[in-house]
């Protein structure tokens, strides 16, 4: 029954978008987690989507193929009074771009809503099909 596959497809997309939203919230939460320049600074995490063919149905779902770390160097702030400042007075803060993350967040939540709507219409169609002949 092909309509049931819509649930699988939309469901896979919803979980992928939720994972993206998770990465965004983790990045935003850590946007100000400063460390010393010698320590390991938090790196922004980004999810990579990939299409997965559903077995023998011709439809295509989504999965998160990997979570990559942003390679841009940490932002250095000059703040000699900070307890974590190095001998030159610099503190390292994560390479999270807050504006980019906000855009990512809106995009992920809109895509999530789209898939919920897809699922709802498929459900309405299936329920209507169930009443066939009555």
């Amino acid at each position, binding site marked *: 029954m092909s309509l049931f596959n819509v649930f699988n497809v939309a469901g896979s997309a919803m979980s992928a978008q939720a994972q993206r939203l998770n990465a965004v919230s983790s990045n935003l939460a850590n946007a100000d987690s400063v460390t010393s320049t010698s320590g390991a600074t938090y790196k922004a995490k980004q999810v990579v989507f990939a299409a997965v*063919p559903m077995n023998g149905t011709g439809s295509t779902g989504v999965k998160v193929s990997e979570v990559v770390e942003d390679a841009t160097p940490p932002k250095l702030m000059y703040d000699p009074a900070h307890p974590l400042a190095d001998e030159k007075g610099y503190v390292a803060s994560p390479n999270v771009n807050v504006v980019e993350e906000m855009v990512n967040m809106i995009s992920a939540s809109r895509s999530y809503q789209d898939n919920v709507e897809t699922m709802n219409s498929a459900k309405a169609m299936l329920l209507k099909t169930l009443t066939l*002949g009555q």
Partner: protein
Amino acid sequence: MSKLDDLMRFQQTALSVRGQRQQLLASNIANADTPNYKARDIDFTAVLANKLQLNSSQSATPLAKTANQHMDPSGSVDGIAPMYRTMVQGNVDGNTVDMDVERNAFADNGVRYEAGLTMINMQIRNMLAAIQG
């Protein structure tokens, strides 16, 4: 084949093709953010004509599939070969899903599916009227 089968076949085939198309459109919407994903759709009229012909002759024996990943020779599933959409405005990441087009097609296809259901309901009612007098 019985006469009832003959009566229902057209709408039944149309409905199943509508279902397949809905699934393809859902895939497109799901992959709106996937890099390099190419949106696909079917030519409903051509596929329906093809399916009706297949149903009436029943001659073609499909190749046996022994693994989940096996595809039909033409790249089709269930005799339906999807085609790729042409883009009006390209995307930087190689994705060709245009959300407006997809949502439009999805809603349109859903309404036509329900129209098909209504037709079948009417046919069933007609037959019941004929049986019960």
